[in-house]
């Protein structure tokens, strides 16, 4: 299970990646600066991408990622969550919520 965290700023990116690694040590979690997200999506092939909506990422890139969490910096830091094409919104997303999404992404990966 591969997770790519590209959220800005750096401190938050590291914090989220740390939480994921600590709670799910068997997941491969990688952090990347927003400008390198597209290349890492192609190279690393994440099953889950955690990003923010103001990173300038071409929306077409998301078609290659089965699950993603988009923190809405443009809208009070709420989050948009997509799991296998099903999109939902979350207010003030927590680590628990992120882990639930990561676990669903892992289930999807195992099924495929």
């Amino acid at each position, binding site marked *: 299970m591969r997770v790519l965290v590209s959220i800005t*700023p*750096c*401190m938050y990116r590291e*914090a989220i990646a*740390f*939480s994921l690694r600590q709670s799910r040590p068997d997941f491969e979690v990688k952090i990347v600066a927003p400008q390198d997200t597209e290349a890492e999506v192609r190279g690393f092939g994440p099953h889950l991408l955690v990003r923010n909506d103001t990173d300038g990422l071409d929306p077409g890139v998301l078609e290659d990622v089965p699950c993603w969490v988009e923190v809405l910096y443009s809208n009070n*830091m709420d989050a948009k969550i997509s799991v296998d094409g099903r999109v939902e919104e979350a207010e*003030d*997303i927590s680590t628990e919520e*992120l882990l639930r999404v990561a676990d669903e992404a892992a289930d999807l990966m195992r099924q495929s």
Partner: protein
Amino acid sequence: MAIRVHLADDHTLFREGLESILYSRGGSVVVVGRSSTGGEDALALIEENKPDVVITQIDADLNTARVVLSRIRSSSPDSRIVVLTMLDNIRYLKALSKMGIDAYIHKSSSSEDLLATIDAVSREPAGENVVVSMPRGLLERMGEEPVGALSERETEIVVLAARGLTNYQIAKELNLSEATVKRHLANVYQKIGVSSRSEAVRMALMEQWIGIRDITHADLDGSSGGSSGGSDGSGNQIRRS
């Protein structure tokens, strides 16, 4: 002895992540309270726990920052205050320093920098120094414009206010409605962290956003039309964006 920390950030996911990182220090840092930024819940916890260090997110205008920081300081006078911010403006940094913060960490710094800062401010209980942490490139590009830089129109209005014109007279001078002038002034107050026109004028002069010549010299056509920008204090015009 462990450093006791209160962690205040409005975003649960980030707050929890930072808390995980702090806990990873093997007990040298203990999070004794966590909360959103500056709310009553935060202040109650800070007052109750009297942490060694309060880490608080501040991304607000100076007025709000002043209120939040003074309330934290009142709740626990001896706590060191570490500000986490996205704002990279030298005036903002200076203003927060004057408000008595102990560290200013830009969020594009790494979590290792945060840990090092907690250590540094804890070793300095007298609070003589301020720790500033941000990437070098960001520091070198750090803007010196006023926080939330005044627009040309706002600068014009401050100049006319400095000349002693009433809102009605300013409105007439600039072909605006009086309500628009009031709205511009309210924006100016919020941006630079003051609460009256006299304070706004004083700060604009002190910080040399406008110059004495702006106030004393009307345009050559004899009108008192506003400046299209600020001044460096010697009358040289500064373009604002």
